[in-house]
């Protein structure tokens, strides 16, 4: 299986509670711009292939193909079914799932796509490109809970900018929500405190690549 063709395996992360481990994979979209057609034929399901021409923007098509290909390849490793034949469905909150007893989650931001997979428990993963977030104070007020706002303050106290602090706290929150399979609109009612999340800084930094991993923050959560 040409796993090294798409993406690199970032590493295995163990859940704090000892409830399981997750593998985290990563891919750089730009690296595979020329291989979109090939990946499409090789790894994507028939429905996914049919959707590719619907994308009116080139970059969107590339992101779609690379993401789906990565997911299938990674899942294939775990469940032993050829990538093309894996059946991916969605929950009613829109989370993609497979029925074969493997949990996975996908995220992308900028040029980066991450896939986390675990045989033990549901996982959520989120990555965000670091940047100056406009009107970040409005976002903090609107979307974060009281304790999350405290977290932001703590990060700031350590010298981070408000944008960076927000992105860190946000990616942890998103990872949790995605592990629970809940969208942001369900955040108020979700038992987020029960979901462990940890940042992915160490994994990102350990990657040997010409790409700028420092430009991203990420988090992984186990439900």
């Amino acid at each position, binding site marked *: 299986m040409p796993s090294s063709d798409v993406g690199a395996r970032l590493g295995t992360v163990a859940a704090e509670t000892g409830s399981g481990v997750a593998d985290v994979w990563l891919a750089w979209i730009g690296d595979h711009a020329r291989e979109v057609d090939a990946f499409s034929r090789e790894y994507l399901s028939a429905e996914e292939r049919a959707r590719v021409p619907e994308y009116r923007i080139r*970059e969107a098509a590339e992101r779609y193909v690379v993401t789906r290909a990565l997911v299938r390849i990674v899942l294939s490793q775990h469940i032993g079914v050829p990538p093309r034949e894996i059946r991916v469905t969605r929950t009613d909150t829109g989370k993609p799932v497979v029925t074969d007893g493997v949990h996975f989650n996908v995220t992308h931001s900028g040029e980066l796509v991450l896939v986390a997979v675990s045989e033990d428990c549901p996982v959520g993963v989120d990555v965000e490109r670091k940047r100056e977030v406009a009107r970040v104070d409005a*976002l903090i007020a609107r979307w974060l809970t009281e304790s999350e706002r405290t977290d932001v303050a703590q990060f700031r106290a350590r010298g981070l900018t408000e944008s960076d602090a927000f992105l860190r706290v946000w990616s942890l929150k*998103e990872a949790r929500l995605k592990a629970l399979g809940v969208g*942001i*609109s369900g955040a108020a009612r979700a038992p987020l405190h029960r979901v462990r999340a940890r940042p992915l800084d160490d994994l990102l930094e350990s990657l040997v690549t010409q790409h700028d991993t420092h430009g991203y923050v990420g988090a992984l959560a186990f439900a």
Partner: protein
Amino acid sequence: MSAVPRPVTTTHSSHRSTADDARAAGCETLVDLLRFRAETSPDRVVYRFLPGDAKPEQRITYRELDRRAKALAARISETARSGDRALLLVPPGLDYVAAFFGCLYAGVIAVPAYPPNPRRPDPRIPSIVSDCDPGVALTTAPLLAKLDHWRGGDERLAALRWIAADEDASDASSAWTDGGIRGTAVAMLQYTSGSTAAPKGVMLTHRNLLHNLSLIRSAFNVTHGADDVGVFWLPPFHDMGLIGGILQPCYVGRGAVLMSSATFLQRPRSWLEAMSTYRATTSAAPNFAFDLCVERIKNEEVRDLDLSAWHTVFDGAEPIRAETIDRFTRKFADAGFRREAFFPCYGLAEATLFVSGGPWGQGPSSLDVSRAALEQKRVAPATAGDRLRLISSGAPATSQEVRIVDPESQAACDERRVGEIWVRGESVAAGYWNNPAESSRTFDAEIAGGARGYLRTGDLGFIDDGQLFVTGRLKDLIILDGRNYYPQDLELAAERSHPSLRPGHAAAFALTGESRERLVIALEVTRHHREPEHEAVFSAVRRALAEREGVLPDVVVLVRQNGIPRTSSGKVQRRATRAMLLDGTLETVARSDETIDDVARVLGTRSDTSAPVEAWLRRWVADELQIDVNTVDPTASVRDYGLDSVAAVRLVTEIEQVLGHRVDVALLWREPTIRSLSRALDAGGQGLSPRHVSDESAAARREERHVSPLPAAEFPEYRLLQSRLEELERHGLENPYFRVHEGATGSTARVDGRELINFANYNYLGLSGDPRVNAAVIEAVSRYGTSVSASRVVSGERPIHQELEQELAGFIGVEDCILFIGGVTTNVSTISHLIGAGDVVLCDELLHNSAMQGALFSGAHRLTFPHNDAAAVVRLLADVRSKYRRALIVIEGVYSADGDIPDLVQFVRVKKRHEAWLMVDEAHSIGVLGETGRGLAEHAGVSPRAVDLWMGTLSKSLASVGGYIGARREIVEYLKYTAPGFVYSVGMAPGNAAASLEALRILRREPQRVRQLHENAMLFLELAKARGLNTGSSGGTPIIPVITGDSVLAVRLSQQLLHRGINVQPMVAPAVSESAARLRFFVASTHTSDQIRHTVDTVASLCAVHVG
């Protein structure tokens, strides 16, 4: 027992009239007064109370009042001492009067207040309690129970001892002893002025009250006729209602008829009816009440009134308008009302009540002054083009001093100058309870270089030729460019200038601007006001103010309905409105001083309201990705542009700020394109509001609002529904819809555990609930299951369907029948399938909605003809028949609004002549008309084959649910194979089919049921007619309306009947026109004649009170 009080030389300056026997007896206190009356005229009925709602009048004699007061006083005195305060929360009525005197007899200080609404308790009450620290509260037993939760939730209230004043403890009266209070003792506290935060209780002594009562007496009629009777509905918690309505009659020894203000407001005619019935001579009301009578009482009703005995109506408590007096006089002249009865007066709680009024018998006097001069605080005669008509508030009482004083300099004003009205005399209260600072400021003012001890009323006015004219409140005065404007005048000018505005709900005030005062007028808009109308309203208001008041407002503020604060007595609070505007808590809909942002212009005109949203989204994406906005494709999705989750929430946050309501993030992912997302977002609100686009700081400050993603709450249709339901609530009526019935329902029903006689369903023959029908259903379900689980075309056909269709066809006399699963769907499907564009359908104007909908969906040309007017159909068809392929005439067998029947013979003739089809909807005639219940054909003696389509429902006489069409075989076959409403629907459930089949069989075997139904219907109708009820055109059917002509009345009667164990539904606007509003009775064969008699009896007696 106590003796009659001994004569005491009084220090009051007074009129000594030989008829003034109460004074002659030397009553020093109100206790003396009532005891004097109880001794000298014990059996005289002093008060009658009309509870409204056709309940009988309640009465009390002086003796009984004395006894009750003593009994209550004894109970109060168990824990309260002389001089303690007692809170009175008793609704208007005789209990209130007894409670009030009970306090006085106990020597405690009465503190009356509006009894709280259990659902919305008045925050003023705890504040009053804090201020005067009562130890005891009096209320009634029912209110005590309802207020339990409220009382328990506030420790100040919970700490009070609560006494139910309506509970009879008559043996306690002997326990009472005379506390020997003096005239100088405080009798009551009046909390009318002041705010919730800083309430002010005016202290009124017995002396104040008795003095003022004598002033009133002197002012309005020195010699009273022995037949003088007063009618009063003003709230007895405030001065005018308490002193004028309750104490004054006792003082002069005449009787009074009391009503609650709610009774008057719900039905203004009740006031004048009482005046007429009791041949009353005296009354009192504020200006708005006369206007209300003019608006709400019909001209026809005036002739039934006899107001010729009416010689005095105190007109005070709010500014008196010349137009109001003119209108009222004109309208009720035919009833014998005379203009001279108007007795404008002026007073305030701080001076007990009465300050000026009269002379009696001359009617209102007016003065035409120059408006321009008045703005300069001068009184000058009017000139052409500069005229303002003022109504005087009467002559100041001669035993008091009334001065006009400049409010700033406190110097006495010259004649013909407007200043603050100051009063000095025995009626002026000692001060505010427990508030020495405020008291000395208000009650002990000093005229510059002159005497002190004056009450500053806070009202502005002038005296001309011995008459006091009150122009407005000092605090509300608006001074612009040195000119005085009275807010009530500005409000009056502006509030009727546009239909979106609510008269009586406006507040004008000034804001201090940089260089000058700015005039602001805030007006409430109705719920139906829409954003595009803002500018029109602003213009209308500006124009009205310019034309009528000669002034332009700087800012016009439109406020949400009920957003302008009011006092407990309903007066607009201008200062509070101003404060709310300044701190941003006023629920503003629009302000005329908003600048339209440039961005709105950039975004272009709003022909498609979602276009600005789309443009905004594209611009946002362009900014986010640093690309050219023209390359952002609206047919692409936001997802395509690679939003990560932070960008997604950023987008949502900003969208929310722009649109002003919450948005569901999932919308971003659901909508396939930017364009469709724009439409979806726009549907949730009213499009972009330009001011939001650039106002980031305001957006960040915006409070989180709780709005669901589906914008149902914003739908105008939903708002309209809400306003109708609230209208019911405002009238104090329960919602009559969706009443839950327990168990099987027929001629009786069970609601909330009570058994009712039921006239609100169509179980005409009592077959629903019949054990044989039930058994047949159970048998069918056992055999076929509960559902056929498929369309009959494919695999849903069962023998029972055919059995029922055949049975029906045989019963009504047609070749074949087709069953639909619902009556509505039968009409909609059949009509819309058989005709279409190129055809014409003629509908009776009262045709059932389902048939009208079918006609609408068919696409055929629709014509409506006057009810039952076959000749009109002839004329219509003569005109248009040739233009159309097919013509269908649709009528009903029995019309369910009026219970009347069409002339089938005529309609058959018409249809033959013009080659039209005739369809008859027999929903209410199958099983009902005809000797054996075979419907309209049997009733009219016409062959069923003469009608092309017989439609009927299974839910009435036939004890099930569903519908049928009976027609020639080809039509039925055609429908069965092609009518979408049949083909694409599941087949009728076996249970439903079995129910009707059995019902039909029983009906064939027992035609006497139909006979019984006819007899019952006839009995009901005859009895109703005999009792004078308006049953419209009902004849020979079990549907009998009782037309009330008033929607609110219909709902109220329905409620009253429910309380008396009779269930009948009202039919109100907009389903019918207002004048056709009614109760609708559906008689069944299972009603007994006793039930029918009892019902008609009850309805008639209730109606007798309301309807003329």
